[in-house]
């Protein structure tokens, strides 16, 4: 197998008869290491290599995709032929339907890593999870269980197409996470911490895993004393340290261009470029160029260089996230959002690092402004319905705010709201940029590593899902 663009270009040329209106080869090789420590012992340990390529042929609006792990020229030409036959099966409108790149854009240097993980002995990777386990268990007698996971991957991609565009990228990613379980007097609580980025072993070395283990263990212990979260409508302050799941779910997904096509307007943000969609203090960017972050890329999986896209500027909708197909339909340049999980997948518009930018409010004053509400310190997973705009996300750690003061910890809260509605009512945005948190974003069965972050923000009213006292009635 080879990722040499010259060899791939020769194969693409050999299959010239099958290009249709546009043809592309995405070739990938990745080497992954996985170390999982669970219940005090190494539970899963694996390392290996996989490689394959996907061939995409457009005939009019129809895209056909064929993938294989056979890198021979014969196999690539056969893949092109199959794709061409498939794409011709039901042809609607003809004419090229994929945007070309602006040739003026230069690729940036890609080396965001210092310590290549493939040169690090497996024993050192194992030491990362063992250290975390030791620290977490040492935090208190109530710590019952620790699961710590280390992964690294080196993904090399070459993307070539019939417009003679060639792009190569190397994504070196290192990630660590752990879940800590604490239990006392029949109450069980879990806490989670993670770090990861387009970075080498330095991402987790030098005590990083121990620091995260301590933070998770202390949170799990704190949450043992937390009361169930209240239920109902109330003001919510999201602290800058909470991470930007709110921005990712409530706003980001709705700005992916495949949901906003004039021919298929599904998102609540469709057709609203240039219009106010948020309060004036809200500015959101999706930036795939920030060195080292989890969503950062040299180029996307269609060969478009990563970019910084302003999605909302002072409340005005500015841009969608485009791959080549959506860019072509909307008559704009692709902006580096075409991502795919592996060579087995077709690209689609995805987020990278999604950030709400700081504004001018004092974070402490934001908290003081709340008579009774919730302060969110860490968010968990979320989901959005892009058609209705409804989103929901889990809160990992929260406190009550009473008369402007942070008081008791509460557990089990979930926030549910409507993205466009929440954007419009956000009334305080802090002057503090929080640290980004990482996530694995899922869309149509494909995962993509992302990051997100926010300053301190206040949503004056939102539904908090929690436990309701009382009895339900059933007729018998």
């Amino acid at each position, binding site marked *: 197998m080879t990722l040499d663009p010259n060899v791939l270009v020769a194969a693409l040329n050999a299959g010239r008869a099958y290009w249709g209106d546009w043809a592309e080869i995405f070739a990938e090789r990745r080497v*992954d290491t996985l170390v999982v420590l*669970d*219940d005090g012992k190494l539970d*899963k*340990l*694996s*390392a*290996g*290599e*996989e490689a394959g390529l996907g061939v995409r042929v457009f005939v009019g*609006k*129809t895209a*056909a*995709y*064929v*993938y294989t*792990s056979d890198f021979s020229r014969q196999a690539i030409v056969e893949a092109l032929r199959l794709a061409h036959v*498939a*794409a011709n*099966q*039901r042809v*609607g409108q003809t004419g090229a339907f994929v945007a070309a790149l602006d040739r003026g854009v230069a690729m940036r240097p890609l080396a965001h890593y210092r310590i290549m993980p493939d040169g690090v002995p*497996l024993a050192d990777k194992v030491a990362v999870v063992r250290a975390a386990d030791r620290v977490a268990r040492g935090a208190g007698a109530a710590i019952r*269980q620790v699961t710590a996971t280390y992964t690294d991957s080196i993904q090399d991609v070459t993307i070539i197409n019939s417009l003679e565009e060639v792009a190569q990228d190397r994504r070196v990613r290192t990630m660590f996470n752990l879940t800590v379980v604490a239990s006392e007097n029949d*109450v069980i*609580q*879990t806490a989670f911490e993670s770090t990861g980025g387009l970075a080498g072993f330095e991402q987790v070395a030098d005590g990083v895993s121990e620091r995260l283990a301590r933070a998770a263990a202390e949170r799990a212990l704190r949450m043992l004393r937390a009361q169930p979260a209240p*239920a*109902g409508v109330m003001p919510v302050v999201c602290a800058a340290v909470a991470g930007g799941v709110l921005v990712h779910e409530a706003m980001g997904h709705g700005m992916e261009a495949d949901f906003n096509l004039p*021919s*298929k307007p*599904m998102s609540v943000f469709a057709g609203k470029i240039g219009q106010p969609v948020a309060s004036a203090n809200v500015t959101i960017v999706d930036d795939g160029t920030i060195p080292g972050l989890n969503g950062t890329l040299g180029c996307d999986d269609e060969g478009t260089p990563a970019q910084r896209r302003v999605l909302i500027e002072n409340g005005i909708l500015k841009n969608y996230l485009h791959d080549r197909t959506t860019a072509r339909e909307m008559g704009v340049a692709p902006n580096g959002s075409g991502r795919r999980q592996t060579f*087995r997948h077709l690209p689609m518009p995805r987020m990278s690092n999604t950030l709400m930018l700081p504004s001018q409010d004092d974070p402490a004053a934001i908290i003081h402004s709340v008579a009774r509400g919730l302060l969110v310190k860490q968010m*968990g*997973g*979320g989901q959005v319905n*892009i*058609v*209705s705009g*409804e*989103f*929901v996300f*889990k809160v990992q750690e929260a406190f009550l705010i009473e008369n402007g003061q942070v008081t008791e910890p509460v557990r*089990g809260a*979930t926030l*549910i*709201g*409507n993205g466009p509605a929440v954007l419009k009512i956000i009334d305080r945005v802090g002057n503090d940029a929080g640290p980004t948190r990482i996530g694995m974003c899922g869309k*149509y069965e494909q995962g993509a590593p992302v990051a997100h972050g926010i300053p301190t923000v206040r949503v004056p009213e939102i*539904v908090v*899902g*929690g*436990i*309701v*006292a009382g*009895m*339900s*009635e*059933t*007729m018998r």
Partner: protein
Amino acid sequence: MAMTNLDTVRQAIELARAAGADEAEAYLARSRVLTVEVGSGQVETIKQAEDLGLSVRALVDGRVGLSYATDFDAASLRRAAQRAVEVARASDRDACAGFAEPETGAPAADGFDPEMDRHSADEKIERAFAVERAAKEYDARIVLTRRVSYRERVVTEALANTRGIAVEQCNNLCGGSAMVLARQGAEQQVGGGMDTKRRYAEFDACAIGRDAAERAVTMLGATDVATQRASIVLEPRMAAAFLGIIANLVRADQVLKGKSLFAGKLGQAVAGAGITLIDDGAYVGAPGARAFDDEGVPSRRTVVVADGVLQNYLHTTHTARQARAASTSNAARASFKAPPDVAVSNFALQAGPVAPADLRANVAHGLWVRNLMNLHTANPISGEFSFGANGMWIENGKLTRPVRGVTISGNLTDLLLNVRGIGNDLEWQGAMGLSIGAPSLLIEQVSIAGK
């Protein structure tokens, strides 16, 4: 001469032994996929491929390591075998590590449907168009469809280990899906339809389209409700979603690590009377059927909960050794790259006697739940859950109006014990090697948060 799949896995275990493994196991998966997506009467994408992967597990001095390859030439297999041995040497010694023993006289479930390959790609594209047409014809307010698909998958798996197992099986599945958007004024709602079948003849394209459309149209005009404690009726699809979370509680690995609510509860009541949960990979009527699991252990039926009482946990070879039990044939690999883990095969909550409408007729105030969001955030250790929900409000036994923007919250322990009615409408949801069946369920005492 071309190597068969069994030749390849046998060669891989020999290479692992040559690299220093005391024992070895190799697993190979070869899959063929076809996915067609259509929109507005045109084919949007066609995906077809043959995918292959092989993984080797090596046991060295009581330690296990795994590596894999996507190329099956001798050099690639040797490299994977050597890497597996290297990885094993870095791992912890585990007295219970090891591979499955061969069993004799076990019945083989053969769910392969040769019919699927006898139909042309053109006909299958037509099935995808049929999904879209059915959705659009359902109601004038259906304005858009997205991700309307026909999909099929054929997977051949071969497994050999140094204990003497050498087996091969082939399974296939087909299905379809649709996302449908209904619009009324400025409001838009989405509905999803999806189905997976083992038999091509059972695949009903129109039913998927109509189901998605009905869900979208019904939600138009939805509002929230007051925060309260009330009953819910889960439709089968949503009951299956909950059962998917419960499936984690009966995994022996989670139980052994103290990470399940069900740890230490064998013989105790963990669910309401009438609830029986059975895992049966040999049942060919459901999508998860297989002849053997991902360690080569023949499929079998395991009663997990009988009439509310916990009877058994689900085991792999490894957890069975830890617990001094027998494997229940529940080893599953998330992909060829992943080591076997405990997972359900065909896992079902057995149907009850009540028609779903009669379940709702018993509810004074409550929610008929037809969609849940954020299922992945349930906590199987503490049992706490809080999901976004929508559906229809029930007032005095009658469906009154659509509801959205609420959460339902509670604890899985209470939820299972508060089941007060079981529907007679069991449906299977699922994918290859893993499917879940459930009927409608009436559950009391659930927290609903709204306005």
